[in-house]
């Protein structure tokens, strides 16, 4: 299951960066994100998986498609690449980055101490309930700051997209 989901999400991401039409790009992005949501379920993070589907495929993709429809009346024109020589070095550097990250992972420096929430314990409390409890106890300040952040983002988006300030 992991390998199928991993392979499809990687292939969808590759299509995302090589596809010419931005509408298809958005659809490939969503496909990749849904695969990642399935991986979250495999990692026993059901709530995060649900939020991933709702936020990314529900909200962000609709936003992207909306903007694409708004702006890309003429998709096939232009798309002229002023820096064609940038492609090959970019791919080489991306590959080098991948190798470096792979070596980092291989060096086994990621050794944290184990936490208290084992699968059985999460199962007994209930995953969403546990997240909700933590959100309103240990993470109350970040939670409130998130609400301020969203508020600021809404105001900023309205101001930026308004025709005349």
């Amino acid at each position, binding site marked *: 299951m992991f390998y199928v989901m*991993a392979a499809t*999400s*990687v292939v969808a*991401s590759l299509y995302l*960066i090589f596809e010419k039409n*931005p509408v298809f*790009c*958005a659809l490939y992005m969503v496909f*990749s994100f849904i695969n*990642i949501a399935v*991986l*979250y379920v495999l*990692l026993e*993070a059901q709530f*995060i998986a649900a*939020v991933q589907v709702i*936020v*990314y495929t529900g909200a*962000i993709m609709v*936003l*992207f498609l909306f*903007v694409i429809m*708004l*702006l890309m009346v003429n998709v096939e024109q232009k*798309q002229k690449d*002023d*820096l064609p020589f*940038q*492609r090959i070095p*970019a*791919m080489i*550097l*991306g*590959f080098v*980055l*991948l190798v470096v*990250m*792979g070596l980092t*992972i*291989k060096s086994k420096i*990621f050794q*944290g*101490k*184990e936490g208290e*929430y084992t*699968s059985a314990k999460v199962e007994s409390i209930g995953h969403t309930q546990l*997240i909700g409890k933590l*959100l309103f106890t240990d*993470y109350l300040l970040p939670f409130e700051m*998130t609400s301020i*952040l*969203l508020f*600021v*983002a*809404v105001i*900023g*988006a*309205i101001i*930026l*997209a308004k025709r005349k300030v």
Partner: protein
Amino acid sequence: MITLTHYLVLSAILFSIGVVGVLIRRDAIVIFMCIELMLNAVNLSFVAFAHFLHSMEGQMFVFFSMTVAAAEATVGLAIIIAMFRNKDTVNVDNMNIMKW
């Protein structure tokens, strides 16, 4: 048996694809999608760590980073719309007014 390393490697691959996408595409909206892809790759490694270390912190972080991603997408797309109004294009090569 799927270990933490599998998830970290997948996350690294997705992140690299996102980086390459940002570098080779000229379309502001697609660059934005690649940034979202990189955010998701990091979220995946957060959740993998949380699962394999029996901790909840990773999932809380993913929750907050998703909120930030949503806010970022809203503001970023608003900026793209504003750019389109001024320049009539979303190609980043034409956004060189601040280039010295």
